[in-house]
Structure formats: structure tokens, C-alpha cells
């Protein structure tokens, strides 16, 4: 069996705030340009130059799944994602209320909730983000970059220590 699926790995510090991800998300899913329909949204603190992409974390114990009164929400383990079955969904928006990340949207035009479905394994936000502020990685690889960056500091210190030592001899 394949190991557990890939996840959306977000590096907020890289985000340029361009919102192309929002545009391609709405076109891919709904055939229209409308940032209000995007499953991913860039939250901005413009006066500080901070941009943070926010999307569904595809939780293991997803609050939306737990709260859903009609069991319309389930986990798709194959792609490691949380999915909504709109044939069952009654549109009560409990999932919208309970999501700790605000990642469950409610579309006022179609009167339906909507969330990231990882574009069935080819997330368009990742595909179009040149700087890779949004990436699609195996879950166990997400922390590797940070590990390496932290480790690099240690190696730098080690190198310095060695250099100092050899100088003193």
C-alpha cells in the first residue's frame, strides 16, 4: 500500500501576496474567476507586508467531519483529504462554524459549502505558485526543510569551533 498521501505545505514567508492561487482555484473548480469561490485565501496584513495563505489542513480528526449532523463529510484516505458529499449535505453550515482554520467556505451564489479537495492530486495553487509558497509534499517531508535550516546553524557553529581550534594550535 502507498504511504499516506501528500499534503499542502505552506511557507507563508515566501508568499508574494499575488493571489494567483485564488484565481486558478476558482477557475479550476467553478470555471469562473471569483476570489470569493477560492478554496485557498491569502490573509494579508498589508501595513506590515505579511501575507499568509490559508487553506484546509485536511485534518485527521476533522472537526467539520465530527460536527456534520448528516455524515456528509468523510476522509478520503487515498488522497489524504476531507471530502464533502453534496448529495447528503443539508447546507446547515455547522462545518463552516466549527473549522478552526476558517477553511470551510460557504458560497452565497450556489448556497453550498466548499473546501479544498487538493484538485484530485494536482493542486492548481501549487502548480501556479512559482515561488512555492504553497507546495505539495509527502506529509513526512514537510518538516525536513526546517530541520535542515536549523541543522545548518549547528554546522556553522561547529565549523567555527573547528576553525578556532585549528587557529589556536
Amino acid at each position, binding site marked *: 500500500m502507498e504511504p499516506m498521501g501528500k499534503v499542502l505545505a505552506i511557507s507563508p514567508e515566501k508568499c*508574494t501576496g499575488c493571489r494567483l492561487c485564488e484565481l486558478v482555484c476558482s477557475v479550476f473548480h467553478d470555471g469562473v474567476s*471569483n476570489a470569493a469561490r477560492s478554496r485557498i485565501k491569502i490573509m494579508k496584513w498589508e501595513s506590515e507586508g505579511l501575507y499568509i495563505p490559508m487553506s484546509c489542513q485536511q485534518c485527521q480528526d476533522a472537526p467539520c467531519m465530527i460536527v456534520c449532523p448528516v455524515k456528509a463529510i468523510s476522509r478520503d484516505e487515498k488522497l489524504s483529504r476531507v471530502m464533502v458529499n453534496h448529495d447528503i449535505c443539508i447546507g446547515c453550515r455547522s462545518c463552516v462554524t466549527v473549522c478552526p482554520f476558517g477553511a470551510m467556505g460557504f458560497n452565497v451564489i450556489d448556497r453550498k459549502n466548499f473546501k479544498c479537495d487538493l484538485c484530485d492530486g494536482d493542486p492548481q495553487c501549487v502548480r*501556479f505558485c512559482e515561488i512555492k509558497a504553497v507546495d505539495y509534499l509527502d506529509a513526512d517531508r514537510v518538516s525536513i526543510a526546517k530541520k535542515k535550516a536549523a541543522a545548518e546553524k549547528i554546522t556553522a557553529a561547529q565549523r567555527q569551533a573547528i576553525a578556532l581550534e585549528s587557529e589556536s594550535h
Partner: protein
Amino acid sequence: MALNRKIAYIDLSTGKIEIKPIPLDMRRKFLGGRGLDAYLLYNHAPKGCDPLGPENPVIVSGGILTATLASATARTHVMAKSPLGGMLGSCNMGGFFAPEMAWAGFHHLVIKGKAEKPVYLWIKNGKIEIRDARNLWGKTTTETQWTVREELGDEDIKSLVIGPAGENKVRFANVMTGIKNSGGRTGMGAVMGSKNLKAIAARGTMDIKISYPKEALEYNKRFIDQITSAKVNQTQGTLGTPFIWGATNSWGGVRCRNFQYNQQLYCDEIEPEAIDEACAETMGPYHMAGCFGCQVHCRAKYKIPTGPYKGVYDEGPEYTSQGAFCGEPDCTSLETLLTGNHLVDQWGMDNLETGSIISWAMELYELGILTSKETDGLDLRFGNDEALLEMTRRIAFREGWLGNVLAEGGIIASEKIGKNSFDYLIQVKGVSNLHSDERATPALALNIATASRGSDHLRSRPAIDLYHLPQEVMRKIYSNPVPYDGPLSSEHTEYIGKPWQVFWHENCYMAVDCLGICKYHTTFLGATLPNFEDWSKVIYLNTGLEFTPREIWDIAERCNMMERLFNLREGLQREDLKKGDMLNHRYFDEPTRRGAPDVVGRVIDREKFKKMVDELYEYKGLDKNGVPKPETLKRLGVEKEPSRLL
């Protein structure tokens, strides 16, 4: 879909708002954006109207592709008669305003009249409301935007605003959105200020249907790869536009000390790499920001590292800020650059015009044409950073005799200062030249002399002329979509073949402005970037409208002709120094003093320049006086303008 975005006519005097669809045949003739704006201005501005009077319409627009999949559809365009030179006023900015306005249902706004008290427009999902802005008056550009959001309770609102400079009708006040995105040129902020219009706020959640979404996504991906693979855009994405200033300064293509030198020396602190370092130190290694949908991300984020504004956040400084606060006044301090950039952003004033006009005043001061009496004791010599920033403040708030005079723009200021001050004013059609020096580059000189909104590089500059491209590459670019078998020269000091290049770029950039995309996504700085053929596809996939590349070229030519007709109606005469297609005498009489061996000692040859203008006029279908021939108007289908169809 994009084509059902509407046009709204707003009369601030009466409060009347009228909303209309944009007929398809108008789209086929003018596309949208700047092109349709030019039609609207010609049809709605009465001949000879006072630019700061109620009858001058201010027109705000997005392009036909705004918020669709066409790489970077961020641009907002604003047009009116310019209070700077009394000719065409036009500015174009990035950011996020036009997409929001398109999602709110609108592509064009035509705003006339004058509100009794300060107001702002609130546009949301098909509706427009005129609201009280008395509490916004006096606020800086960012304070205004944040206050509007708070007042209306929506953080996603995008606003187009003016700062104190616009309120004070500084004739080169700009229109701003976000921290940095500025519609800088030709004083559109003053026109808004004259109407008591402080801001236009937009918020939209209306679908824009994409005609062929799957294909549009795929095409857009290819488009973006093409754009981001260009070395020039990769450099823009790391160093921002300062890299252009650095490169241009290295060979001597930058104005210094008004127009006395063509290169700034001893300016290590403000080289692109040094600016980048300051940004990285204050904002971290990833400090570039992008406009809507753009993967070039050429705008840097920074905090001012030292001085009285230490720790204050802003964005840029871009190419023009370097010219304004460094090259032209010959100041070399990073702190001055970052602070000056911040001040004009906050007060809403065109950095380019500000730096240019102060540098002119500095030259006049050193020549004794201005004295400390006129400057109210300010020691306005070149290289005086403090005086530069203080004069910037005086202009924005119209303080002191000279501050108030310079706020009127170069032409009026030269009349008030008198003597031979006008001889030193580096402008075309009342608009200051970009801080580049074109004496060694005839193609670029022709571009600024004939640009429709006055001296400007973004109208027709063949920037790739500096790359010494192989003949076959030039031939490929310049003989599409219309055949051209005349001469082309890879040599930037040549005069031959340049008029065709200027004509080609004039049409290319007009098409870009009609689509609502950024010039970094076309044949401006990169020779391999998309143009007419790609646009034909991208328009079709997004809107379903079919145009051949040649048809897009024809539309661009028609739109350029509308701008020409406007300028002619307002008094354009070929060799008029204030209203013509003419350069300051210094271009012809004063050789460059610095720069690379093929740059130093250059002037523009007056006779050859005339011939270039003649040739460009021929391509444009104008007679020797620059007036369109009847058959040209007929060919372009504008012989009956103003037709008042929209």
C-alpha cells in the same frame, strides 16, 4: 463573463448614477482599458475644459482581461485631461483594485462634476453609492484605505485613493492603491481632488465566467513559464526595478543634476544590491511582493533602517524613486531614498515628477535664477538630502513661495519663476522626463518626444533597442503582425529604422493597456515575451472573442489615434515646446559628459531627429504637422468622432 462588465456614469454635482452595458461593437473597436478610456475622454471632455474644473471627466477602468487568466491582469487605468500640461492625462497602476472592481461588476467609471463636500464612491456587486468622506479628508493614502475598510466593515475592500497632495491639487498628485501601487503620471490625483473625490472603494464577489476554463488554465501556465523564464524578469523578481536603474547608470543613461550629467557617481549605497540588502535585513530573505496574479513580483518590501522614520514599513523603492531621490538631485543616501519613497507614497504624489521638478529648481538655484528669497532660506543645492525632502513636503502641502509654485508643475512654475528658467525644464507636453537620459539613444528620444501623455517611457519605448539584438531576432519581432521590410539597426546610437520600432511599441503597449496586463509581460524589457499572437489566443480563451493578431494591432492603432485626436484638439503642435512632439534644446545642444565610450559626447542630431518624427508620422498616417490625414481616420473608422455612442 468579462464582456458583461458595465460602465457607470457618475455625476458628483447632481449625485446621478447611470449604469450601462458596454456594446460588443465597442469592444471590437476599442477592447477596453486605456483604449476605451481614450474614446470616452474624447467624447466626454469638452474642448479646452479646465483640467481642475467639474467638466473634466475622470475615467477609471480595468482592461478587457482584468481578473481573468492572462498572467498578470492587475492594472487599473485612470484618464482625464491633465492639469500638468493641459494635454492627455493618463496613468496606469498595478495592485488589486481593477480585479476587485471587475468582480463588483464594472470595467469603466466616468466621473464628472464636483461634489459639494468630500465624498467617496462605494462600489459593491453591481451597485454604486456616493458616501460622505469628510472624515477621510486630510488622511494619508494608507490611512484612507484602512479607514474605509473599517467604516464599511470589510477587510477585502480595495480602494483607489488620493493623499493630501491630491486634496491640495498638486498638479502631479497621484492616485494610489495599496501601499505602493501608484498611478503616478499626469496629475490624476489632482483631478480627483478637484472633484472632492477622496476615494473609490470596491468589493466584488460576482463571477467572471471564463469561456474555456481548462484551456485557459493550460495556456496561462505556458504564458507564465514563458514570462518567468526570461532572465530580465527573474532579475526583476529578486532585485526589483532598481536593477534597471543600476544597469542604466553603469553605461550613462541616467539623468543626474537635472540634465547636467548622464550618470551618477559614488552611489554604492543605492545600487540595486545595496537596496536589496536593506530589504533583506528588515524583511527577511523573501521580501518581494507581487500585484494581482503576477509571478514576476518586482516590488520589494522594506522598513526604513535609519533616520527619523526608522522602522516604518513601505514598498519599493522602484526605478523612478531612485531617479527622483538620488540620480536627479545627486543625493546618494539610502536613507533619503527609502524615506523620500515613503513620503510621496503617503502624501500621494508622483515620485518621478517630484524629483524631477526639485532637481530643476536645484539647477536654477545654483545658477542664481532662484535665490534663498524664493526658497524661504532653504539651501536648495544639488546633493542636499535634507533640502530635497523638505522641498518634497513643501510641495505636497503647498508651503512657502517655491513649494506652492512647484506644486503647479513645470510649465506654470517656469512662468512664475520667469527669466530663462523654462530652458532648463526637462519636459515634454508639460510632463517631466523620466530620469533617463536619451541623448545616446535616438529611439528612446523619439519615444519620449512623441508619447501621448507627455515625456514617458511606457507609451512607446523600444527598450530592447539597448540589447544590440541580432538582426534576425529584430526582424522577427518587428515584422509581426504587420509586415515591415524597411531597415532595422541593432545599434542603439543609430537613427535608422527607429521610427518603426517606436511605432511598433506604441501599438504593442496600447494593446497591453487595453487588456489590462502589465508591460513586464510583453516585449518591453524582454525580447522573448508575449505579444499580439499570444493575446489573440488569450482573449479568445478567456472571453470567447475572436481577434486575429492583426486586428488587435488595428485596435491599438485606432486607440492611439483617439489619444492623438484629443491632444490635437487641446492644441498639440508639432514643434511647440510646451504642447508638441518636441524635446528640450539641451538634447540637441549639450553633449553628454559621462558614460561608456559609445555614450559620452553624444547629442541628438536635430535634422535626423526631425526626419525620425517625419517617418513616424508617416507610419501613423499623419501629415507633416502631425495631423491625421482624412484617409487615415477613415481607415481606422474614427472619421466621425466624437460619435457619442458610449
